[in-house]
């Protein structure tokens, strides 16, 4: 069975039935049903949420930002957002290829709950909250509680993710007085600003599931870190923030040696990387500290610059992810 409700209320009615499953961008949905010739003829009831316009789009709210559940990666990549979202936007441009970004959605990424979901680390650093609705009401769940384990979430029967909300707390704490939309990297006089970045390590240039990825969100006072949030993905069943490291980074100067020693001073014991077809757990353990430093350093690379791989030869980039000084491979 298949339905494509035109209103959220209708969608919630359908969802309250047994055996329903949400279809958004379909980029996880269809590959998982590869062997099913005609999806929708099987017992499950597919609810296509693509007609629900209110689920798509990004808006500034009183207390922060609200990203509709069906907002695509392309929507995010091209949106005008403050610098604290640079990391998320970098991630958006590295999910699959253009075709995937044009339809894949942020809520789809969270609901699939893959350890390698590229959207999760940046959203964790943003203290994202998942907004859920069902016929019986709505609730909000912090992202780190929403994804409960390897491919499992707190989503209950009948619930739809309607939005991801980002509180504004971080920005106000940062003493940053700039208006949103102006990048801190561009400002010359702000002595205290918010920066964010995302570094993805994969073994090829495009269409690659991360071996590991790091999102960083920091506040700088001059050259000194005053607040830091770091999240690492693909190194534990669920991407995770590293509070001990975040504390250790406060006071560190934003230069390689200092960051390196700060990162190495903490045991990253929240990470439990495993061996898979992409890399060994041991490898992940070895590179993550480096990727964290890369991500921190990348925070200060203006976003425009990050759209190209730093090329040692000055020739054309050939797709190295996680090159020093850049949060992006394209």
């Amino acid at each position: 069975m298949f339905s494509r409700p035109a209103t959220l209320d209708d969608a919630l009615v359908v969802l309250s039935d047994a055996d329903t499953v949400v279809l958004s961008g379909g980029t996880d949905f269809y590959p998982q049903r590869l062997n099913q010739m005609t999806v929708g003829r099987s017992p499950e009831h597919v609810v296509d949420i693509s007609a629900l316009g209110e689920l798509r789009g990004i808006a500034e709210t009183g207390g922060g930002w609200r990203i509709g559940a069906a907002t695509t990666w392309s929507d995010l990549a091209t949106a005008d957002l403050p610098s604290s979202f640079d990391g998320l936007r970098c991630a958006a441009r590295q999910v699959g290829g253009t075709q995937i970004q044009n339809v894949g959605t942020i809520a789809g990424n969270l609901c699939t709950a893959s350890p390698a979901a590229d959207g999760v680390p940046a959203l964790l650093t943003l203290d994202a909250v998942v907004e859920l609705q069902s016929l019986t009401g709505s609730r909000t769940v912090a992202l780190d509680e929403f994804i409960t384990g390897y491919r499992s979430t707190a989503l209950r029967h009948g619930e739809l993710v309607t939005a991801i909300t980002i509180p504004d707390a971080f920005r106000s704490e940062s003493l940053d007085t700039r208006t949103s939309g102006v990048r801190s990297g561009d400002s010359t006089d702000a002595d205290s600003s918010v920066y964010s970045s995302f570094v993805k390590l994969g073994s090829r240039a495009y269409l690659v599931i991360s071996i590991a990825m790091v999102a960083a969100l920091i506040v700088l006072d001059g050259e000194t870190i005053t607040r830091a949030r770091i999240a690492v993905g693909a190194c534990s069943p669920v991407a995770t923030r590293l509070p001990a490291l975040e504390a250790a980074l406060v006071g560190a100067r934003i230069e390689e040696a200092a960051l390196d020693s700060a990162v190495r001073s903490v045991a990253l014991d929240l990470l439990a990387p495993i061996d898979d077809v992409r890399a060994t757990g041991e490898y992940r353990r070895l590179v993550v500290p480096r990727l964290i430093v890369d991500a921190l350093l990348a925070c200060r690379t203006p976003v425009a610059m990050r759209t190209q791989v730093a090329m040692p030869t000055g020739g054309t980039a050939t797709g190295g992810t996680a090159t020093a000084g850049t949060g992006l491979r394209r």
Partner: protein
Amino acid sequence: MSNDVADGAAAVDGAVLRTVLVNGIAASFEAPPATVLTEVLREELGLTGTKVGCSAGDCGACTVMIDRAAVCACMVPVGRLAGTSITTVEGLTGDELGERLQASFLRHAAAQCGFCTPGVLMAARALLGTNRQPTRQQVMDGLGGVLCRCTGYQAIIAAVLDVDAADPVTVRPTSGKAVGASIERVDGRVKVAGTDVFGDDDAPDDALVIHVIRSPFARAAFTFCDLESFVSENDGITAVLTARDVPGVNRFGVIAPLADQPVFAEHETRFAGEAVAAVVVLPGFDFSSIEFPVVWAALNPLTSPALALHPAAELVHTDRPANVLVEGFVQTGDVDAVMPSCAAVASAEFDSPFVEHAYIEPEAGWAEVIDGLVVIHVTTQSAYMDRASMAEILGVAEHRVRIVPTAVGGGFGGKLDLSVQPFLALAALRTGQPVRITYSRAESMASTTKRHPSKLSVSIGADSNGRVTAMSFEGVFDTGAYASWGPTVANRVPIHASGPYFIPNYRAHSTAVHTNGPPSGAFRGFGVPQAAIAQETLFDELAGRLGIDRLEFRILNALTAGQRTVTGHVLEGGVGIRDCLEALRGPWADALTRAQSLNRANDRRHRSGIGVAGIWYGCGNTSLSNPSTIKVGVRSDGSVVLHQGAIDIGQGSNTVISQIVADAIGIEVHRVLLRSADTSITPDAGKTSASRQTYVSGMAAYLAGVSLRAKLLAMLDASFDSEFVFDAGVLRCHSDGVARSVDLRRLPVDADGFVVVAVESYDPPTTALDHNGQGTPYAVFGYGAQLIELSVDTATGRVQLHRVVAAYDVGKAINPQLVVGQIEGGIAQGIGLALLEEYLPGRTNNLHDYLIPTIGDVPPIETIIVETHDPVGPYGAKGVGEHSLIPTAPAILNAIHHACGIRIRSVPATPTKVLAAILKRGAA
């Protein structure tokens, strides 16, 4: 309820009529709403330009535009398309920018097999829609979601950047000038239009559909339950086929005496993915929820040659003692005497995994029985071999089987063996109806052949002057469950393991060992790429120890005409390895300077390095007859028709053979009408493998062309060097001041419609090898060398390629643009072998765990074509198809060593392996 939004919350169960806007036209069809768009475009609307390579978003072949944005149609439910506008490759016709793009793709030969082309074009069209003048980087970003396995992407990038070429030139050579001209592919237009017909593109609507039941275990015993009631109790199921239904011999193999692979396993399966049964169902019947009545009992598999060679190991085939399929051996001089006295000896062990061809087109075809003739339309590299095997399997004479090859969406050796053909033929015969099958990506990867995993143990010694004097090579190749091309690999490797160098004392031994892995078969290079990794990286070690520049070391040892190869074969001419290596001297010096200055300027983390490797490769079968026959004739209207059975799998034989035949006849190439391979029409031009088509079929084409010319001029009573023209149905010529003519319309017409015809065959002059592997295994060798510039991120082990310079001796480039395309495509596959690709049976049966290079993984490539004029080949030409892939991996490994001092001897050099080696070196 045709409007989707108006469906509201009402659930739809089953097919509904809907209308969508496709290429500006409202198209109606009936389908369940969750059906994916690819299915509707291809099956309901007949728009087969949109291709399916994976159904999972991994290949991008299905890219279309929905409201101007590129999306993968394989993941779009048709239930959400109301109000949108869909553009497919068919819609580029009539679109100004789209047509410019197609023309640019033709000019740049950006389509080889053409299977990825519709997806690439649509991604490019979407990009240009938002960014009319993209940079190279933006082109890569825009096209990063489409895989191409043939081109190496460089021509694609160039074509997109050149979309607005002000004054595009069309190459249209005059008569006698086609050879050497980069004419447009003769089959290029259909490829950029999306109208070329591939294996899954033209099955009749009512064709029954075949599903194959395969072993989930590497080794398993199995029993069927009640198959009869399975058929009778399921309405949509027409028939079940098992080993019992094979009327002829339930065995096939590309090397007839070793044929060992059953169409359906009989009692036990020998690899994961082996077929045990096939189910024939009505079109549209959903087989996914049907449980097939088979009971499996998993058995202990042999997962490596080490296990298979253990004296106590069970036998994969009871008639193959010690699990050894074949051995290969070449010996000359006295290695044991010379090696100890060498000034420097480098020795090491190497290994490589299964590698998957990953052509973007999965195996597909359809079949029907017409008056007792079984007609199989199929994507294949070897129509005649297919026919012979099918006749055996069906227990009929060969003339009762007709193989009609469709366009082939990439092969690289993987479509030389039978795949879907037996299922099609058996099902068509059983049901008496047209039948079709298309492998899923997973099925394609699990059940077809792979590159042989290798374990090599190699020593090479040189004297103090830097001359290589001795080499020993011991190679064990995992040939998997069935023979396939294992013997070819075992034989080719010892002949080629010396590389294109003079080595007076040499011993090479290879063993092909059966395991319960997938059958290892032919993959671009037949084992030579694996061997070259060992030889070329050890050459670097020797040069290093002797303090000789690595390129000069190779030049010093390069084989020259008049020297003996390791099989004692003295090549008289056309030995171009030295020329290739010398052509790299300038780029090598530049690259070295660049790497050194980068290493001075850079942080210690990113280290630059350069590497070089050379290759040689014999064109045609090893010491075996492998003739090609070409027929060319003139019809009564004066048109010239070429019957050319050399299957074009994207490499360009349709074009190259046309060029050769045109010049041999003495007519303009665009006058040659082509009939491509079909066992009922074209004579046997052998298989498309072993880089043999340009040389062997090219020679046959040359001879046929010359013969036709001689016949035409004899009819005119004119001398052989006279010029002639076809003036409609009249052949005219001016010779010795006399106007002569023959009215072709008055001549008798043969069964092919010809009034004059020439048929010629060519078989390369080779000899058998003796017990020491001495003899003339190939008549022609091609040569090449590659230079790679890269950098290694020593903190992550990630290797970034910056540039490749490739110098190739192709004898004579019949079509230089196609030569460049072969080289760029081979290099891309070499990059995959070196850095990315490892097929793990049962684990990587998809294109997101099995990673092949994307557009961002192949650096700019500069090709230098060296023409030594081969004394044997047509117009001096020889092959390049496989040569292109072979040096890439060793050159990359050598550059990695140059960059950061580590030796990777196990490919792929993944970040995990590279970083481990860097840390180990740091600790030492």
